[in-house]
């Protein structure tokens, strides 16, 4: 039963992985994530740290937020942003799932190659 369940979860899990990886495919967003994982920052603070407009930084934050990588909250007129460690953990799990899928395939190739019926086509 185990492998069937693994396969199901991989299909769903890799969908989420795309969402996360898409958010992470950009260097600025990775830096924003790293900064907000160590402490909460306002969007305007973040905007001062990058050579780009407030609006551009806000856009990056929005992508990170949609992927669940950061959480935003309003404090007065400020938007405060902090990283979500659980989401970072999920990325690791998603890559682990990819590894598991290919390890299982390599094992099955190994078995196939060892099969005397198929092992030597000559």
């Amino acid at each position, binding site marked *: *039963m185990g*492998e*069937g*369940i*693994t*396969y*199901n*979860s991989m*299909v*769903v*899990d*890799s*969908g*989420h*992985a*795309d*969402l996360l*990886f*898409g*958010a*992470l*495919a950009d260097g600025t967003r*990775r830096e924003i994530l790293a900064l907000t994982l160590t402490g909460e920052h306002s969007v305007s603070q973040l905007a001062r740290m990058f050579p780009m407009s407030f609006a551009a930084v806000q856009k990056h934050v929005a*992508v990170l937020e*949609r*992927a*669940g990588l950061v959480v935003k909250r309003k404090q007065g007129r400020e938007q405060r942003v902090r990283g979500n460690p659980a989401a970072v953990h*999920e*990325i*690791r*799990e998603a*890559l*682990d799932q*990819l*590894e598991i899928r*290919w*390890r*299982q*395939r*390599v*094992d*099955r*190739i*190994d*078995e*196939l*190659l060892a099969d005397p019926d*198929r*092992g*030597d*086509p000559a």
Partner: protein
Amino acid sequence: MTVTVVEKNPDDLSMTITAEFTAPVDRVWQVWTDPRQLERWWGPPTYPATVVDHDLAPGGRVSYYMTSPEGEKYHGWWRVLTVEAPGSLEFEDGFSDEQGNENRELPVTTVQVRLEPQGSGTVMTIRSRYASAEAMQQLLEMGMEEGMTAALGQIDELLAA
């Protein structure tokens, strides 16, 4: 131990796995080029794969489905990008509906296969990369759906079980 190295790189969205086989390159190449052999390892034993089309040429298409223990079919496709026999293959790997229409809402990965001789055996390197920025962008625009969040909860349960 067959698998010798695994590298996971979140920055370029890829996972690379290196494996060693005692069989020569020509033999290992067959597990990719012979659809009947491909069926024996592509899907898990409980989700066996049936290969329908298998055109391993640049621009060619491989289509297959995997059958669940309950008889449900999951359809998939490859779009072949490059082939150099023996030992070099690159393709996109995705999902489709029963009619074979590509489902671009599910993730597409790009897979690079390299087979290199090592003594009388083979070193196989597979690089699997979560693919197109376009596909990922679509997912981002769709936003985090309730269903996806719920499914993730189920995965956590399954992984903990």
